[in-house]
């Protein structure tokens, strides 16, 4: 019978560490007199005996000593395994009472079985997730879910390194996972990704692609959470009454969202999106697990909406889908390259020139295709001024074509390029920067639209 009264607990679950559950439980139980000095000493001795046994197994009986860092790692693995079992007791006081009676070896064996169960369950969820994975061009999504998680199962060594994660889970889950370790983390991570994928499956791959293009055209190489963008867009569509299935918040819808959220306090934003989420989960017939996951995501989304509304940047929260395939394309031919022998002669001729004007004159006289000009700019060892003079002869479309070949990139990535190319890029960018704002915009736009013939 639930009489509405909570049991008074000596140890609060929130006071215990998720990472070092066993150690923190011991510390709390000892400080609150649930375990005496004798109990602690016995438990420590038994932990050491277990470590000695595991060390012998690790060395296959070949060596009686082991490197300290490995011994510490095995000890951590043992404590993690015991902690995993103790976490199955909902009441930490009861877990402390169990510690008083049970042997460490017994707890370890139970923890080990729990790990095996978690591995089986996580593998099953992962297999299902792989079978239902949404099609997306984002590199990190499939890479992490397929290769990364498979790598984890390949490397996971529950006997001696149960607390290790081994892989870096690159793709970020949306709802934060507590500081778990080992299989406990992987289980929570795979479950989170399963729910996120499950939600995204309610939309077509093209609609998600267009939405993500609206976020950033180069979303393929960005470490973003797809679920967050899809859920936010779906909530926005539901609230604005636009086409939720297509994730299409049109301009009127965005204006409406801007209008209502700009006057709402956080509490009202939460209520509004909770209502929208309810509609969504009913409409898509979401299972209770997924519905709960969505509910847990809402405070994060509400927080972002509140901040964006205050900063007048709701455009960066609710995106209009973008259709890059519909944008006009410029087909550009760089032209034929000249004969190698002739090219070599021109390069030698340029090298022998003493004044810049002569070099420019030779280039103007002999170079008739952008492909050759590109080579000359790389090979002729021109100064910044000479390069600028050559570039000033070109029209904007040709500059845009060069920019397409040598796009702006961060300084750090330039290190991998050969010196001549680095110099050409620098000269090209500084030349473009000296042009008017309008010309710069036109070049960037044209460069994005250019396709090589």
């Amino acid at each position, binding site marked *: 019978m639930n009489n509405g009264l909570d049991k008074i607990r000596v140890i609060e679950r929130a006071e215990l560490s998720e990472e070092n559950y066993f150690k923190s439980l011991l510390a709390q139980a000892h400080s609150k007199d649930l375990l005496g000095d004798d109990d602690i000493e016995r438990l420590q001795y038994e932990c050491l005996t277990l470590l*000695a046994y595991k060390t012998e197994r690790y060395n296959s009986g*070949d060596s009686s000593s082991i490197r300290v860092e490995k011994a510490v790692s095995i000890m951590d693995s043992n404590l993690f395994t015991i902690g995993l079992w103790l976490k199955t007791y909902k009441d930490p006081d009861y877990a402390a009472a169990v510690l008083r009676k049970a042997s460490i070896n017994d707890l370890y064996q139970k923890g080990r079985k729990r790990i095996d169960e978690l591995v089986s369950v996580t593998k099953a969820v992962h297999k299902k997730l792989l079978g239902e994975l949404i099609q997306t061009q984002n590199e990190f999504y499939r890479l992490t879910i397929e290769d990364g998680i498979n790598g984890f199962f390949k490397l996971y060594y529950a006997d001696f390194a149960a607390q290790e994660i081994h892989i870096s889970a690159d793709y970020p889950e949306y709802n934060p996972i507590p500081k778990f370790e080992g299989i406990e983390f992987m289980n929570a991570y795979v479950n989170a990704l399963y729910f996120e994928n499950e939600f995204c499956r309610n939309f077509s791959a093209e609609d998600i692609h267009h939405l993500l293009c609206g976020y950033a055209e180069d979303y393929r190489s960005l470490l973003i959470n797809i679920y967050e963008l899809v859920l936010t867009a779906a909530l926005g569509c539901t609230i604005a009454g636009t086409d939720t299935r297509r994730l299409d918040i049109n301009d009127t819808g965005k204006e409406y969202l801007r209008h209502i959220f700009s006057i709402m306090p956080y509490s009202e934003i939460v209520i509004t999106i909770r209502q929208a989420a309810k509609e969504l989960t009913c409409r898509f017939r979401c299972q209770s697990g997924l519905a709960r996951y969505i509910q847990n995501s809402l405070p994060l989304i509400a927080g972002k909406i509140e901040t964006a509304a205050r900063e007048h940047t709701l455009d960066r929260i609710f995106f209009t889908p973008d259709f890059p395939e519909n944008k006009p394309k410029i087909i550009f031919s760089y032209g034929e390259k000249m004969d190698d022998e002739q090219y070599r002669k021109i390069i030698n001729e340029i090298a022998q020139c003493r004044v810049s004007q002569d070099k420019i004159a030779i280039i103007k006289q002999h170079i008739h295709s952008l492909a050759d000009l590109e080579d000359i700019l790389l090979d002729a060892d021109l100064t910044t001024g000479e390069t600028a003079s050559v570039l000033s002869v070109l029209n904007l479309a040709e500059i845009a074509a060069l920019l397409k070949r040598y796009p702006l990139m961060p300084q750090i990535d330039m290190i991998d390029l050969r010196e001549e190319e680095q110099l050409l890029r620098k000269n090209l960018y500084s030349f473009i920067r000296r042009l008017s704002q309008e010309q710069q915009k036109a070049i960037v736009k044209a460069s994005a639209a250019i396709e090589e013939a």
Partner: protein
Amino acid sequence: MNFELIPFASGLMQKHAVSEIVKCNDYTEQFGLSLTREQAVELVNTRSLSLRDNGRIEFGGGATQKIIKEFCDSPYLYTQNYAATLHELIETFYYYKNETLDLISDDDLIKFMKSAFDGVCQGSIDLLSNRELYRLAKNLRFGLPADYSEDSFTEDEGDDDE
């Protein structure tokens, strides 16, 4: 809550290790060699220091007993140098456990040490440590046979030239 391994382990295991070393006297007395309790304590201290210096941890009597039992019939050990040699052997043993990257078992390393000590080193710990074990560790690290020697290879070449 202290789960720091080294202080915890050494405190609890120290007494146990001393009595195990003293027990070895039953076997070594037939060769006229034995250790007093004080000497056993000193050996355990040397072992602890060697383990600490080499970043290792050991449970039980471990390798010390094995070293004692293996070396006690060496013609180069006698009452006056017995304890001192054991100290050096223990230090050398743990140092080369690390240097060989744990690629060789305790038993094999001790057997190798004994064979070299009684053989080519003629009872010299310096030769054992700086030449034979150095070569063994290098061979193991490079994936060569344990007894591989560059000297023997060049000597053979020299013979051919002659």
